[in-house]
């Protein structure tokens, strides 16, 4: 179980001479991912998804808030002490091309973390070899043909599998998949998604899925929660299908409206929402962060910041003063 409360992250970009610019990547995010469960983060580019994923994987520090892994609060620990906890959480990188060291064979790549573990647990060297073959088989690769190869000799999909296998060497409790399929060929994507789903089911690994493609989120974490993030804030949170079917936050609705419609197979949603402007991070921070782009903004929106809340009649949490269901997604022709 991994929980976070009020996680804040601000990047300070140092100007060469004068003036630092602050990027408020996360503005107090709460999340909770149960053991073996799933959660998906969606949002526009630059809204802080990757940052949150990296914080959860322990690759980035956070400025405020609390993250607890299996009940152990990490904020009070020293960086060195946090490390073993964070090892339970492994990040699957978006880009399988840079996630593997081009100068090392797959064997070498898997060997390093395994021998570390063998050292800690007093296992034998044979175990290392065995385990390397095992994790490769787990991700659907043939150890015999893959082990001796260099990354450049593998296809993108195979590499992503190797990356996942490498993450499995340390028996993680959670995988953070940051757009893990966006750079993989369309025909292979589903394979990786299925693999993650499979691992979740078989090994009980929870999966945090970061994407801007809602449909994939549905595929892998359909039974989990969906977090819609906008400019570092969670604006809507709830069961995946609920949000897809009945989004209440105009931002979520904009996102869903933007999904291309398979004309001919699908019927466009009746009330598509188009934001008024495009994203501008330097916009004022006052009031609702989405206010300026929101076609439905009310008076309160420009002066007050709505917080994640539950309101009557809405099953999911949302951060909008005027929540309203709109039918935005396309439906298959057959259903209509």
């Amino acid at each position, binding site marked *: 179980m991994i929980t976070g409360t009020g996680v804040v992250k601000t990047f300070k970009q140092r100007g060469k001479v004068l003036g630092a610019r602050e990027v408020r990547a996360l503005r107090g995010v709460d999340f909770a991912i149960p053991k073996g469960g799933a959660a998906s983060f969606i949002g*526009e*580019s630059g809204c802080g998804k990757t940052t949150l994923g990296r914080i959860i994987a322990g690759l980035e520090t956070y400025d405020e808030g609390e993250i607890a892994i299996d009940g152990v609060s990490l904020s009070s620990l020293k960086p060195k002490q946090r490390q073993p906890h964070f090892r339970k959480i492994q990040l699957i990188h978006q880009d399988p091309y840079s996630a593997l060291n081009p100068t090392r064979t797959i064997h070498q790549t898997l060997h390093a973390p395994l021998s570390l573990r063998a050292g800690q647990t007093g296992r034998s060297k044979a175990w290392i070899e065995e385990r390397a073959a095992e994790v490769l088989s787990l991700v659907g690769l043939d150890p015999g043909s893959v082990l001796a190869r260099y990354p450049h000799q593998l*296809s*993108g*999909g*195979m590499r992503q599998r190797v990356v996942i296998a490498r993450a499995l060497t340390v028996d993680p409790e959670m995988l953070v998949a940051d757009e893990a399929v966006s750079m993989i*060929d*369309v*025909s*292979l*994507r*589903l*394979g990786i*998604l*299925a693999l993650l789903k499979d691992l979740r089911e078989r090994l009980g690994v929870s999966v945090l899925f970061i994407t*801007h*493609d*809602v*449909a*994939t989120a*549905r*595929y892998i974490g*359909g039974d989990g929660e969906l977090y819609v993030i906008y400019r570092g804030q969670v604006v809507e949170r709830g069961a995946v299908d609920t949000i*897809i*079917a009945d989004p209440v936050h105009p931002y979520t609705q*904009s*996102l*869903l*409206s*933007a*999904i*291309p*419609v*398979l*004309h*001919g*197979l699908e019927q466009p949603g009746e009330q598509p929402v*188009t*934001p008024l402007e*495009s*994203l501008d991070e330097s916009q004022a921070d006052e009031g609702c962060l989405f206010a300026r782009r929101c076609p439905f903004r009310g008076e309160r929106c420009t002066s007050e910041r709505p917080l994640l809340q539950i309101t009557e009649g809405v099953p999911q949490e949302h951060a909008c003063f005027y929540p309203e269901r709109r039918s935005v*997604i*396309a*439906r*298959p022709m057959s*259903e209509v």
Partner: protein
Amino acid sequence: MSEQAPGVRIGGLTVVYKTPAGELPAVRDISLTLEPGSITGIVGESGSGKSTLALSLLNAVQPPGRIAAGSVEIDGLGDVAGLKGEELRKARGKHIGYVFQAAQNSLNPLKTVGKQLLDLGRSHGVEDLRGLVREAKELLGRMGLDGTRVLDSHQHELSGGMRQRVGIMLALVLNAHLVVLDEPTTALDMITQANILKIVREVHAERGLTTLVITHDIGVVAEVADRLAVMYGGRLVEQGPTREVLGSPRHPYTRGLIRAIPQLVGDIDEAQALPGRPPTLATVPKEGCVFRERCPLRMDVCDDVDPEAVSDGPRVVACHAVNVKEHA
């Protein structure tokens, strides 16, 4: 010349790249017709030869590649594959607009958009440069941008979506009526993508263009295209009206591809991965059907006979299994 949308007829086009293993075809024997005024979408996975095909439309395949056979007939221009030198240069930009795969980087970082626009005008002997600027501003305004500001900006001062729109503007400003968009929305986020696609559709209609959109995202094609062509391993495996192809895909690859896409609604378990993996230039089978390794309908004949593209009304499919079934 052509104030009307031109038609394009690609016939038997083969494009090869020189590699250490010899010259290998990235596009093989492709015939495709772009009807005047239509939007045609080409989908295919990475390395299937989409960009190569698109570049052939301008006879701009980069070395070590070359057009090895076939013709690209464009109304009002003739066979582009035979054009050379100045003639070819003048055709580019003026008759055929090209929007880049990575439009993000298709602008000279050292010059303002305006200056590049003027360069473009001068290159094509436009006398009324003011008029050109006016036209550009209008186009940009049409796409929801502040023309004056954009023309005064450098590439790095524009966001990805804005650059893409500038790219479209530059492709259209000389009044080209054939526009090729190579992956116009890759690397853009959802909302921007929707926006750009809308613009493409609208501008197409307003200006009366013939448009070719290339993408690996079936959703994009479905959103904009009238006709859809599916490429695999340098071959066109299926083409036809978008709705029909998506509604009842015939080629096993098209079918697999559509099935591999997770849906927003309905049973998620319906989605199914395609086995195997797409070929690269070196692994594309030299003869026989390019898809056979991953094909659920594989037959013996697939191993050594290239399936012919067989038309059936508006639809064309190149598959032994499908054709056999239908003609038998």
